[in-house]
């Protein structure tokens, strides 16, 4: 079986929308809350919010309004729970959006903003040129827009809002926590699982290659069919990682592709969802492969395509004991020195499953 590895570099594609930021007055509802007192939801809006949620697209709010008052209204509409980090205050909407992006830790080019006022859209567009702005007048067409239609809707996409919500709770707790970070992480009782990609993981695996930019060593993306071939290929190992802790599950959050020849194993791809960046689990899968390579007595190499966003992966390789051996074009090839193998942090329970 031959495996087609003609993969696309992610940065050349237009990223799908990960989060839609809503204005409220004259956009989500008819009327101006503070002037009219009573407002009614725009026709079809509740269905749009719920459908986007089902597709795994996160939603937030940038509205110039009174916070308590507006949240109260959203509650009576039964929609308040759908919005993460709602920004309801009087600052510029570009500032609200920046704050949402920072809290969610997703790329600025994966955000859409919908507002009825050209002034607000222009203000956002000018300050943050990569944001895609939509006129509230076209709200009925939103669900058909290609940018709002992820190729796959997986179990993980449907859970996405809940995972970000529990992450929000965790962050608040972490901020209140006074002891060292190590102690806080230990209190989470994290369970990290590493398993070969199974047939049921393929959609999520593809989704991870398409969605993950910051913690991605090469940015290679693979189609469902390619991944299915790779997972069954005798010359490859395709591993997926999951993470759970006392607050819930993060779902499947890491993917690793290893190309194995007789004497050399090459890491083609290592990625981790940005969602778990603050959990300090980034190098666990890597360490696992380093130990496997050492046991097998092979040379372990790793590819990296550096860009302005994935410096953390370069640092991860360096700190895990890799050294640069070659540069070709934009690709850097690392080789592990096998002198010291980093130990796994003792605050995580790591479970490795075999086929």
């Amino acid at each position, binding site marked *: 079986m031959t495996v087609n590895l003609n993969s696309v570099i992610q940065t050349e594609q237009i990223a799908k929308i990960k989060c839609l930021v809503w204005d409220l007055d004259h956009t989500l509802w008819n009327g101006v809350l503070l002037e009219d007192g009573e407002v009614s939801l725009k026709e079809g809006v509740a269905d749009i919010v719920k459908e986007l949620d089902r597709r795994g697209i996160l939603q937030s709010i940038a509205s110039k309004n009174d916070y308590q008052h507006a949240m109260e209204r959203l509650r009576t509409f039964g929609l308040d729970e759908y919005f993460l980090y709602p920004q309801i205050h009087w600052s510029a909407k570009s500032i609200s959006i920046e704050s949402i992006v920072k809290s969610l830790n997703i790329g600025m080019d994966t955000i859409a903003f919908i507002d009825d006022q050209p002034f607000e859209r222009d203000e956002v567009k000018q300050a943050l040129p990569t944001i895609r702005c939509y006129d509230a007048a076209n709200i009925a067409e939103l669900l058909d827009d290609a940018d709002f239609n992820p190729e796959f809707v997986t179990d993980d996409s449907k859970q996405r809002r809940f995972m970000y919500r529990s992450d929000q709770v965790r962050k608040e707790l972490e901020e209140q926590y006074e*002891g*060292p*970070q*190590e*102690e806080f992480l230990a209190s989470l009782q994290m369970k990290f699982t590493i398993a070969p990609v199974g047939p049921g993981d393929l959609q999520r695996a593809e989704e991870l290659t398409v969605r993950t930019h910051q913690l991605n060593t090469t940015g290679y993306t693979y189609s469902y069919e390619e991944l299915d071939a790779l997972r069954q290929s005798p010359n490859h190992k395709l591993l997926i990682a999951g993470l759970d802790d006392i607050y819930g599950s993060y779902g499947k959050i890491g993917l690793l592709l290893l190309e194995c020849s007789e004497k050399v194993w090459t890491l083609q791809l290592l990625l981790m969802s940005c969602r778990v*960046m*603050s*959990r*300090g*689990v*980034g*190098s*666990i899968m890597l360490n696992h492969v380093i130990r496997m390579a050492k046991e097998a007595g092979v040379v372990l190499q790793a590819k990296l395509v550096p860009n302005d966003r994935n*410096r*953390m*992966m*370069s*640092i*991860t390789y*360096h*700190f*895990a*004991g890799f*050294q*640069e051996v070659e540069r070709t074009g934009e690709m*850097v090839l690392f080789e592990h020195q096998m002198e*010291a193998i*980093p*130990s*796994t*942090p*003792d605050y995580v329970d790591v479970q490795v499953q075999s086929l």
Partner: protein
Amino acid sequence: MEETKVKVKAFLSRFFRKSEIADDDDIFALGFVNSLFAMQLVMFLEKEFSLRIQPADLDFKNFRSINSIVELVERLKQPA
């Protein structure tokens, strides 16, 4: 040099449970070096001491102990 050491120690104390890390302790052996810590350490050093750590200096041996971190910072700081 002393000032650098004090700053590095203060930074590390935010991460490690062990209350006093000796200058020569191998921090990688303390079991808490993860990719997040690595990134935070690199960013902290670059910002605090206004320097840029190039890939050639990202060797983990340069970050192994307080002494080696201080040595790296002093070396990178010198030519303005």
